[in-house]
């Protein structure tokens, strides 16, 4: 089934390198570009930090889908975020080894240091953002360094045996 629509896409600045990368990913799906929806969304989330409504519409237009069919996918996977994370996004491992090594305490102290309120978080909205929008945090599953817990990531940086939350945040000030 091909789906196309007459809709206009709101302003969304896609750098040409990103678009090239996306176009390349689409070529991996020669039978129907519809199937490229996941890789395209990953690329967009990597770049923008989340999938905005504009990104949904852009993806739909790119892949000849209706926006609602893209939104369906975005909301199905908790891995896709629908709102912006902080400038620094922290992922704290909560799987067994790290949990035993104190990752839940680490989560608490990070939240305190970064002034993040996690009370509204749930399975489908796993991320909490600080008031100033600088930091955001979520639990992640095993980050593959189980012997050095508690483990966390800040954006793409890996941190092991994290003990001092404030010191960690100190590295990500501006």
């Amino acid at each position, binding site marked *: *089934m091909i789906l*196309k629509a007459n809709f206009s896409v709101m302003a969304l600045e896609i750098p040409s390198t990103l678009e090239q990368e996306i176009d390349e990913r689409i070529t991996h799906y020669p039978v129907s570009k519809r199937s490229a929806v996941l890789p395209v969304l990953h690329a967009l989330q990597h770049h923008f930090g989340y999938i905005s*409504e504009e990104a949904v519409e852009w993806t739909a237009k790119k892949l000849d889908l*209706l*926006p*609602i069919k893209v*939104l*369906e996918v975005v909301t199905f996977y908790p891995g896709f975020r629908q709102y912006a994370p902080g400038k620094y996004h922290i992922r704290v491992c909560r799987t067994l080894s790290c949990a035993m090594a104190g990752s839940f305490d680490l989560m608490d102290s990070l939240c305190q240091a970064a002034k993040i309120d996690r009370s509204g978080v749930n*399975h489908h909205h796993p991320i909490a953002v600080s008031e100033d929008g600088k930091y955001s945090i979520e639990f992640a599953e095993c980050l593959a360094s189980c012997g050095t817990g508690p483990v966390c990531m800040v954006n793409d940086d890996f941190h092991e045996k994290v003990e001092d939350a404030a010191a960690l945040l100190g590295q990500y000030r501006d």
Partner: protein
Amino acid sequence: MVSLTAKTVAYIDGSAYEMEPGDTILKFVDRHVGRGHVPTLCDAPQLEPYGACRVCSVEIALTADGPRRVVASCHTPLTENLHIFTESKNVRDLRRNIVELVLTDHPLDCLTCEVNGNCELQTVAAKVGIRKVRYPEGKNHLDRTKDLSHPYMTSDLSKCINCSRCVRACDEVQGQMVLSMHGRGFNARIIKGLDTSFAESDCVSCGACAQACPTSAISDVHQSKAIEATDSTRTVCTYCGVGCNLEVKTKGNEVLGITAPVGAEVNNAHTCLKGRYAFKFYNHPDRLRKPLVRYNGHFEEVSWDEAYDYIAKRLGEIKTQHGPDAIAGISSARCTNEENYLMQKFIRAVIGTNNIDCCARVCHSPTAFGMQKSFGTGAATNSVVDLQYTDCILIIGANPTEGHPVTGAKIKQRLMKGVTGIVIDPRRIELVPYAKHHLQLRPGTNVALLNMFAYYIWEAGLVDREFIEKRCENWADFENGLRSLDLDELERIHGVDREQVKAAALDYARAEAAMEFHGLGVTEHSQGAKTVMLIANLAMMTGNIGRPGCGVNPLRGQNNVQGAADMGCQPHQGAGYMPVDDPQWHETYEKFYGMPVSDEIGYKIPQMFEAAREGKLKALWLMGEDVVQTDPNSEAVKEAMNALDFLVVQEIFMTETAQYADVVLPAASFLEKSGTFTNAERRVQRVQAAVEPLPGTKPDGQILVEIMNRMGYPQPDYTPEGMLAEIAQIVPFFKGATWDGLGDNGKQWPIQEGNVGTAIMHVGQFKRGLGKFHFFPFRESEELVAHGKEFPFILTTGRLLEHYNCGTMTRRTGNGRIVTKDVLAVNPADAARKGIEDGDHVRIVSARGEVILEAQVTDEVKPGVVFTTFHFPEHLVNNVTSDVHCDDTLCPEYKITAVDIEKVLDEPGRQVHSSRIVPAEVFAK
């Protein structure tokens, strides 16, 4: 149980039953044991199997006592010799537990629920034997708020059981894809559009989702699923030529709601918003309820007797003084076959003239004329179901998703499935993104484009020589015509790149079966009938006639425009299309009616107006026709109305035209009458009164019978059976039709003895013997030749899904709140040049007058072309339209008007037409 020799069988609870190809386990059990034996929740007969709820679980085994496995029966294909166990303890427990879990998140307020007694969840819960819910109260969604944003659609998702039936109905039935499941697991919920409300979404309020929803989670303001109604009547929609079947729910002579019958051949559980929801006009306070006679310039309410006497006297006088030809009648394609038949009989046999015409004149008369010339019959060659068998759909001058929504939705579904689509239209209509080709020609150049189209088929050697030799004539002439074409000239005229035309033409010609649909964008042109014949050429030269999935298929506008012409509401042909001026047929008619009838061809509608203005026509009888608002060049029509000595109007509302009448007779709407309508695929279907006529009103047929008797003609009393029997005696292609025999789904004419219908025409041989080719060169419309320099834009017109013609009915329903005005579509380039922005008021000037409309800047139209609809007569669009007509049939050229546009500066005190929308309060809820 059936005999089992050499048949493939499977076993239900130990007994063998015969399989059918394509059976799922559920279909098989439903057929042999009955629907409902296996409970279901996410399955619906009008939808593809889905397999979400597992309530339909059964056990299966390869042998009677082999190991068993549980499967969902609705989406598991049946295999030979399978043993199915529908009632084992295991599946019963499983089903009960599933429903119990569903109920943990459902408000158990059944007693006050809108669908109490007609809720599938309720029924299934009862069936599987739920007595209590064992699970403790947990998190739930009972606090979801209702969406009451839309004039028709409602939702209360606290009642949603996430079965996805609504989503699938929107995708599979309507193809609008408004609904979706957002999130997953506990958070899964139905959304509209990108999580907005019904009103904000692209929902076209077809109601398919509401009908498919097993609970009241999605419903409508009429609460159509409630079981409050005590009666239900199957009838046919009055709004377009698709002819959807409707199930009208009534209680105590009031219509409560309308649903679409599941399994109806025309519209299996599907309608558009007009058929399903726009019925509240029928008992609107504005309905006329008393005959009115104008005495001394003022209308007075009188009794029916007085009105009839007055009419009989005045018509009698005029007939004696000026002869019968000073009287004319215009019938209505909204009325039944029986009423149209009576109307022409009244004019022909009682008055004694052939001055009878109907609104087909202004829409599809060129189709009837052209197809008669080419094939011998002026009707669709194939049926809509043929969409299943076609490889290529050619759509010319039609916007089916707006004008013929249910057929439009089916076309869209096929295009989405990959069938090649070719759209020939000056506008980028909704189907364009789904079609492979869009030939966006300049309005009025169909002939140039189709000639080029035919040329490329011929040039590529894709002509079906065998078909032509065996079944057609005049090919050589046509071929010579093609040879003489100047392609550069044609390309300049129609403005579409020739390579594009060629690619489309080759796709059409190469398709195994190619099907054509056309609408008023073909007919309402000076070369309208000629265009129809060119379309017929295309079908013949590629052998696309007389087989499934092909043919020439006009999308007829009004619900019974086919029938009105079939019944003889035309000045040159009587009931059954026999020429009135042929001595032999003339005699047949005289004998049949038992009265002398005229053998001279009468006036067509535009000629009637002209004759009135010239004083030759003295009296006019209009049945359900608002000519002042709907015919082009309104001023000239009004002049004609004023010039008449005597005007009788049968109407349901006080229309603009009725204001000019001497007698107004209050008629009944389609919900209050019985008879038959013939849809665009020649399907004669039963219209059955769902309610009694409003007090004081009468069905049009009854009125005609009474006046005929009053004027001395012994016409038997009106019954649908009796009338159909009379028609069957004179109209050859109704020969075998009987009221009972038409059944639920009607029959497609020609109807042979024994109610045998015909789905595909011209199989093996054309009705006229040989199919005839015609060649016509392009000729520019006189309107453009005369006024094109001074008025450089082309105004073309069309319709919207939400409204019907001048909106007399639809605007008295909730539809009036969905679309509230006509707007003018202007291309961005033109808009920039003229300093026009979205929402600006624009003056549209033609050689005849001017109107002011709000601009909508859109690239849906090409530069140089502007487009508007005509549903809001207060904008008086017909003040500017031209009265140029089709050369052959006098069908007006609504599609082309030379205009100029300019921005209206909002000077204080300047009168800008605003729409007279009936405020929401008057809609009876």
